[in-house]
Structure formats: C-alpha cells, structure tokens
C-alpha cells in the first residue's frame, strides 16, 4: 500500500506543478483563482496520500479545515474580482 500511495503521490505532485504553472502564467485573475482552488484541493489529496504512505493519522481534521478555507478563499477572491470589474 505504501508503494501505491507513493506512486499516487508522484502523480498528484505533477498535477500540483502544472497548477502552479497555470498560477504563474494565467492571463486573468480568475485563472489564478481557479488554479489556486485546484492547488488547495491537490494539497488535501496529497496530504491524505501522505498519511496513507506513512500510516500516521495525526493530520485528521486539519485537512477538513484546509479544504473549507480554500472554498472560502476562492469565493471571496472571485467576488472581489467581480467588484473590481464593476468599478471600471
């Protein structure tokens, strides 16, 4: 199971690198919001896989908080972008 979790961890890390690439390149602010949201999700998935690989379950509810924070953050920044566009 450890090897499976490590292989999956490599795949998720590659996806995270691609998301960071979009975060750096993304032409609009909304692209960056989408990339950041995906990055938070990938972080949560990676942490779950990490607990599985090392078979310690101390992270637990921290990941729940992290995913909820990612949700609130992307909603807030999207609304901020909307308001900024309205000002123009």
């Amino acid at each position, binding site marked *: 199971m450890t090897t499976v979790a490590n*292989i999956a961890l490599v795949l998720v890390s590659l996806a995270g690198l*691609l*998301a960071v690439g979009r975060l750096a390149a993304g032409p*609009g602010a*909304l*692209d960056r919001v989408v990339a950041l949201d995906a990055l938070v*999700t990938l972080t949560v*998935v990676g942490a779950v896989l990490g607990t599985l690989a090392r078979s310690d379950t101390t992270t637990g509810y921290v990941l729940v908080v992290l995913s909820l924070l990612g*949700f609130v953050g992307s909603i807030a920044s999207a609304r901020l972008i909307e308001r900024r566009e309205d000002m123009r």
Partner: protein
Amino acid sequence: MTDVVLDVVSAVLILAGAGFCLLSGIGLVRFPDTVSRLHAASKAQTLGVLLVVLGAVLQTPAGKAPSLLLIALFSLLTAPVTGHIVARIAYRTDAVERRRVVLDELATRLVDEHSPDDRRRDGGEPDDRRPDDREPPSPR
C-alpha cells in the same frame, strides 16, 4: 483473503483518483479559456478527492475514517458552488472566449430580460407607449 481484495480495491481507487488529479492538472495548463479550465479543475475537486479518500478510508481503522469522509463530503458540497460563482463572474467580466462558444443561450436570455428593465429605467415613458401600440389592432 479479504485483506488482499481490500488492498486491490483501494489501490485501484487511489490510482484512479490520482490519475484524475493529473488529468485535471494537464487540462488546467492546456485548455484555452477560464471556463474550460474551470471544467478541468473541477474534475480533481470531485472525482479525484472522492476516489482517493474512498481508497484511503478502506485502509484506515474505523475510528479515523470520519475526518476523511468529512473531506469528501465538503469537497462535494463546495466544488459546485465555487464553480458556479467563478463561471458566472467569468461570463460577466468577458473572460469567456466568445468565438469558441457554440451555443450561448444565456446571451439571448439576458437580452430578453434586460430590455424591459432598460425601458423602465428611461423614466417609464416607453411603458406608457406600449398600450398605445396595442390599441390600434383592437378597433380593426
């Protein structure tokens, strides 16, 4: 015996979920505009998380499973909300590439809904004219 079956099932689930995450990362880089990137990113947020968490739940002792299941539940609840709001703002701030859109039902809908509003905002005068427009047919 059941341990082996459980291991195989959770390995398949975890690898499939990680594969979905990688696919959504590739889509995030390759797709042309914000809305299609949103479509790619939401694959990781729903299927990727769900499959990996299910695979991990099969491997963890029963006492530790609730936090993992909460992660899956919250990501299932929040991904559609984020997607909806970001897509709506992308449409309104013209982040959608119009020439790639095959069918835009919202545009005609918005025109239909906005035209009466615009008439009312002009001081209500066109609203007074409307019954006049309707009157000529009735005497005939």
